[in-house]
């Protein structure tokens, strides 16, 4: 008899593929929503990514009632409050978040306020505070990495107190995630690379950390396969719609995987590095992934070895002795990083970023030890261990 136990939950309807945006009006109508508000950022609007969303709705006679396009990269309680005011003033009845992690998190937080009432989003911070379903909420991701469209968490900064407020509830999950290749077609190469490495890290950590389970494994391994088969093709041909769709789906699948089995030390170090040195999250993931896998190697040899099949294909997998597959997986990830460096100079070491000082490593290690994800790392991590990984990732 084993003590093993897991929970798996993902009620998000995934609407993916060609002309997926054109399904939005039907999906809204099926939830009796007629007055949607779009929440996005200036970059998304300037790139023209709102146009096909609006056109898809207008063609079906559905008017977008309000558009808020000023979400900052680190969304705040003030921004959330301001958007909620617009939503109420315009008598909207649903939200469509179009963008990356910040726009999506902002959409989740606005949905709390407009559904639960009040102006103070801070009072809903924490886990399990929400007890009722919220307003209809749709997410259209414009990057292929965060997986926020299928996670039940959001992080919003409280500017006055200088803290980041976490929100966690299954009611934050959108009703539908709309994955349309048009939305990621114009992503610049370094963002394509960093966000794909973010998704690869979600999948790899989900597959190797202590909360792994059979269902999240299925999503994680499929995500790894899609990324390994499509990333370099898209880097070489950014207008490859099929490849873009594969990466976007991989990101969603990796999101489903990690939101049900959590992540480990790569994220602990990545969160701390991002907070200390203001590096993008996806880049941090790419920087630490191989070094953390090396650190965890003896605890994760079996699952890591399995990933070789999805990274390098059946021929390489079968030609590699079983006891060398875990190392071969790490080599394959290093090789992928080298290829990305060649194509867009995505840094492979902390030094290559030019934004991290060696003197900052100690404070990064200290901060990483208090990160929630460290709990799910398969191997215990002490300060010296975190420093050793950081030193290896340095240069």
């Amino acid at each position, binding site marked *: 008899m084993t*003590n*093993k136990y897991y*929970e798996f939950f993902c009620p998000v309807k995934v609407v993916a593929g060609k002309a997926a945006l054109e399904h939005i009006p039907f999906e809204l109508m099926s939830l009796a929503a007629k007055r949607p508000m779009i929440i996005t950022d200036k970059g998304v609007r300037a790139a023209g990514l709102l146009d096909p969303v609006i056109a898809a709705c207008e063609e079906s006679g559905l008017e977008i009632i309000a558009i808020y396009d000023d979400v900052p990269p680190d969304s705040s309680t003030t921004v959330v409050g301001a958007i909620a005011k617009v939503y109420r003033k315009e008598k909207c009845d649903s939200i469509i978040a179009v963008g990356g992690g910040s726009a999506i998190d902002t959409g989740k937080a606005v949905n709390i306020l407009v559904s639960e009432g009040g102006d103070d989003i801070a009072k809903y911070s924490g886990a399990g505070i929400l007890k009722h379903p919220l307003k209809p909420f749709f997410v259209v991701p414009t990057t292929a990495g965060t997986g926020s469209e299928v996670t039940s968490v959001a992080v919003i900064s409280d500017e006055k107190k200088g803290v980041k407020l*976490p929100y966690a509830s299954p009611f934050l999950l959108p009703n539908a995630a709309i994955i349309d290749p048009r939305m990621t077609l114009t992503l610049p190469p370094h963002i394509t690379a960093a966000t794909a490495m973010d998704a690869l890290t979600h999948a790899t950590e989900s597959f190797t950390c202590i909360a792994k389970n059979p269902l999240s494994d299925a999503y994680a391994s499929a995500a790894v396969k899609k990324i390994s088969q499509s990333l370099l093709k898209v880097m070489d041909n950014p207008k490859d719609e099929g490849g873009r769709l594969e990466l976007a789906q991989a990101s969603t699948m990796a999101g489903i995987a990690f939101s049900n089995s959590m992540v480990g030390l790569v994220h602990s170090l990545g969160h701390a590095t991002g907070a200390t040195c203001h590096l993008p999250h996806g880049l941090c993931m790419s920087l630490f992934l191989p070094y953390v896998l090396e650190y965890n190697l003896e605890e994760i040899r079996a699952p890591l070895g399995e990933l070789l099949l999805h990274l390098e294909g059946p021929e390489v997998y079968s030609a590699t002795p079983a006891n060398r597959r875990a190392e071969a997986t790490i080599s394959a990830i290093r090789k992928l990083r080298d290829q990305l460096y060649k194509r867009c100079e995505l840094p492979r070491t902390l030094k290559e970023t030019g934004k991290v000082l060696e003197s900052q490593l100690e404070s990064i290690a200290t901060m990483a*030890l*208090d990160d929630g994800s460290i*709990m799910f790392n398969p191997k215990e991590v002490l300060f010296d261990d975190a420093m050793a990984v950081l030193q290896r990732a340095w240069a």
Partner: protein
Amino acid sequence: MLAKRLQPMVFQARRAYVELMFQVMGRALQAISEVDDSTRNEIRPLPPGFLFAMQVMPNGPKLIMEHTGDGRLHYHGENAPGPVDLSIQFKHMAHAFLVLSFQEKTSTAFAYDRMLVDGDISLAVRITRVLNRLETFILPKLLAERAVKEYPETLNLPDKLLNAARIYLKVVTNFVETVRA
């Protein structure tokens, strides 16, 4: 049939065991914060007066601790003197029993969603490190290896025995004082 008749007794015994373990843990946490520098370093960043609780949902046994300052903890039994800042809640008595009888590691219980954290997660991680350190001191190595993710290689037997003796002495003293009071 017999199993069904015995079930209430099993439930009672399990509850009594969890209650006893919480009482021992509470006193031992207070003791380790008095004898161990590393523990005090872990606790020191918490604000003085910070209250944290471990409890079994919905109305099961509780363990309330307060940071009284300079890394020292005070055990309050089941009654918090104010609003609790951080609570770690087992979803069911059976889950608390699995962890407190060393059949499941604390980190595994988190991974298996057996517990909920209400409050700052980073502080919960810190408290978990303190619990792990306590368990490595006061449990025989074979049991401690079942309770923590990794038994520290650097912990030698004389250190372990000395610290365990000091912690147990303080726990017993505290129990006696409680009974006398």
